[in-house]
């Protein structure tokens, strides 16, 4: 793997500095980052790693060194091509026998072509095709972004948080359009995306590849209020029904444990397919402050934001009997720091799901076994902060009880959570140089 890394360096990075030709410089730019990160699960529900593995022991030390390079080409004013990959090394050590491991990996992070009519950031029409990052809730720093399966799912539920990566990565087609008028801008996105595995170590809801259709709208008002909503038909287009809706999926029973029958007499079975709704709102409270006071604050200070989603509109018998239990609610606030740091966000989440969130399952059947954490897992919290030390160099950190999952060097989260108990928490610190 090291040799691939060196080849990558020599083949692309070193010659890039030779792009002295002005015409070439206009067409191709590059960027990326290098970071060193360490973190620790201070107290978890899985102190011996029996479920999550040796990477999730209490006090286990987790280090990452990652390097990403992104190339951005603009062969014409209306076309842009962005591609990038990331190489990482991860080490885990927990002081227990056989409790250390080292992972190295390379992964593709972006490969998309974008065609734009109009302004790139506020296009009249824009079409993107490929593999791309997507974020619809700008203020959300850790929780939220529930809309795509990359972050949350309906049947059966899971939520994923990934430090400093509060977005989804999607494969497929995005069509966008926007309109800007004084005091308001409106944006519409339509996406047809192919489902990807969301965690390593899991077959991840067989039927990776199925297509999901999603629509999102976003309205910015008076430069201080941002309201957005979306609807998503998860796995609307199935490539293989035996995987999307397996015949051996759990039969749905009602509260009396009687089979729920379809109109044709067949028994109703659980499915991965679902319809999700999402709403997010943010308010920049600085706009309501006197100008003199507001100027003392950084641009991210004083933003209050929230996001809610319905993870599956449809109830299925006793397994999914209450839609309110499938609505995660996130509230966040960027505490004013008067430029001491770039931002300090406090976020809280309530998710009333009464089944286990321990492991990302491989099928739509939920687990209701009470391992003592079902009632404790509903509330989550995190503090996330960033401080730019010098141009391109920043320090970021998080502390909290969130849906933390250890990640491998390639950036894939593992299948199990470990912070569900009331006294569980972890922290991560990252030193990053961006260019």
């Amino acid at each position, binding site marked *: 793997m090291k040799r*691939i890394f*060196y080849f990558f360096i020599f*083949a692309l990075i070193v*010659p*890039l500095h*030779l792009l002295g030709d002005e015409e070439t410089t206009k067409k191709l730019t590059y960027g990326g980052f290098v970071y060193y990160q360490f973190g620790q699960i201070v107290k978890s529900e899985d102190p011996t790693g029996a479920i999550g593995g040796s990477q999730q022991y209490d006090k286990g030390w987790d280090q990452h060194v990652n390097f990403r390079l992104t190339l951005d080409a603009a*062969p014409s004013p209306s076309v842009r091509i962005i591609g990038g990959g990331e190489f990482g090394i991860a080490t885990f050590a927990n002081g227990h026998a056989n409790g250390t491991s080292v992972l190295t990996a390379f992964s*593709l992070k972006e490969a998309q*072509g974008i065609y734009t009519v109009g302004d790139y950031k506020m296009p009249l029409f824009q079409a993107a095709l490929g593999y791309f990052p997507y974020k619809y809730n700008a203020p959300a720093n850790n929780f939220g972004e529930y809309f795509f399966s990359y972050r949350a799912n309906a049947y059966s539920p899971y939520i994923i948080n990934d430090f400093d990566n509060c977005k989804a990565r999607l494969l497929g087609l995005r069509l966008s359009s926007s309109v800007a008028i004084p005091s308001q801008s409106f944006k519409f996105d339509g996406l047809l995306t192919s489902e*990807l595995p969301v965690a390593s170590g899991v077959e991840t809801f067989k039927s990776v590849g199925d297509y999901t259709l999603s629509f999102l709208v976003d309205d910015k008002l008076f430069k201080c209020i941002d309201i957005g909503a979306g609807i998503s038909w998860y796995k609307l287009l199935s490539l293989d029904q035996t995987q999307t809706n397996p015949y051996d999926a759990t039969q749905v029973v009602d509260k009396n444990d009687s089979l729920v029958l379809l109109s044709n007499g067949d028994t109703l079975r659980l499915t991965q397919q679902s319809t999700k709704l999402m709403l997010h709102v943010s308010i920049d409270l600085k706009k309501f402050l006197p100008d003199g006071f507001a100027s003392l604050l950084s641009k991210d200070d004083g933003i209050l934001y929230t996001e809610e989603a319905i993870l599956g509109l449809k109830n299925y018998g006793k397994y999914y009997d209450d839609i309110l239990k499938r609505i995660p609610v996130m509230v966040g606030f960027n505490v004013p720091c008067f430029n001491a740091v770039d931002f300090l966000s406090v976020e809280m989440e309530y998710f009333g799901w009464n089944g286990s969130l321990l492991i990302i399952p491989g099928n739509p059947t939920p687990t209701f076994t009470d391992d003592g954490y079902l009632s404790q897992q509903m509330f989550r919290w995190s503090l996330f902060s960033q401080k730019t030390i010098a141009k391109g160099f920043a320090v970021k950190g998080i502390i909290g009880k969130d849906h933390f999952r250890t990640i491998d060097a390639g950036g894939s989260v593992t299948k199990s959570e470990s912070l569900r108990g009331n006294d569980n928490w972890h922290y991560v610190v990252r030193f990053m140089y961006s260019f």
Partner: protein
Amino acid sequence: MYGFREGNYKRMKKTIFMLPAIFLCLRAAFAADPDISVTPSGSVYYQAGQLVNTTLTSQDAWPDKTWDQRAVLKAQLNAEIRKHVQINVGIEFGMLILVQPPVTGAAQGTTSMTNIVDPLIAQGAYSFGDDSQNSPLKIALGYFPFKYDASANNMGEYLFRSGAYPPFIINTFDDCQARLLGLHVSSSPIENLNLDMLFTNETFFKPWGDYSLSFVAGYKLKNVLDFGAGISFKDLLSVDPALRTPKTSKNIIYDDNGNVVTNGADTSYYTFQGTKLMARASFDFKGLLNSSALFGLPMGANDWKVYFESAILGTTNYPRYFENLSDRWPVMIGFDVPTFTIFDVLSLELEYCHVKYDHYSFNGTNPVDGFNADSLAGEAGFRWSIFLNKTFGNGIGISGIVGKDHFRPTFAISPWPGIDNPLSQGTYGSELLMENSDWHYALRMTYSF
């Protein structure tokens, strides 16, 4: 998360790593030289396709309706120094997703996703003369694509996309060329005549590491006729003769009476080594017209072309498995259907190669591993494909294919690493389109610069 095949990489590492170092030295030497230009190029594409019908015998691994989609990034840097030295390096990254319906006896299908990193090109070249594009002599070294038949869009290019013993043929969607490692000397001593000599090292097919010597010639007669021929001495120099001609009990040559064939006192064994011949021709009807339009409709650059290629994959016959030259003699004919610039290319290609023993199960340990008397021989001989390509400008293009060709599923972006992937012996390197009713399709959308 990465899927780079370690075996292939080891074989190419010296050449690939040498070239950037050469590049850096040259850069240092000509640091202030204004005659150095570096041009980036690359592309991103999204592709989706399906194996609609496959041979029954492959249902255990690759069932009908298998869905294949991928997102790929290709990045390349092309440097030219004082118009004589060219250095090209490139890499491709991608993710490949396969969705497979249930195999025989299973209730549920499977899905998989693989991240891939592969070298695209890594070569240095020196061109004599003032024009590097039309150089009287050019010497290149490294890992590079090579295409001798400009007309072929899917089938053909047999000289390097095939094996002799056993005979097999490779097709790659929208990549009708070979990828070679070694030395390439090309010359255009007179206008319209191209001569190529290649001394290449085998990186994808067993026996790895052996050197082949090949000669290819091509001539264009005005704008009407383009013909050429080639010869390749496959595995001429062996790094391990025991691998080129395995002396194992399974590899002994028996005659039709079951007697061991001997060479003097020695037992004869099948060998991977062989000599391949190739001939091709293309005829462009537009060259006979003194107009770029027909009946008032504009003609595309590729319209109205008929092309042909044939090859002999191993000139020597061996008893039992390789006793008929006709079993190793593919013939391809293609026609670029006139679309009057609606498409850049719409080609229909047909191929026939008599099949006695199957081409689809190639194990690779010795030349006859995996051979079965092929009950599908009659149907497997004929292949067809329809290929289209359209570039919209601004670097956006689409391409598509439908057909029954030598499609091979792999976990690689192209079959080149996968055909002999140690993880795919016998199954994933197999052809899947053998019966008349077998076919597949794929559609690709590309942004390139």
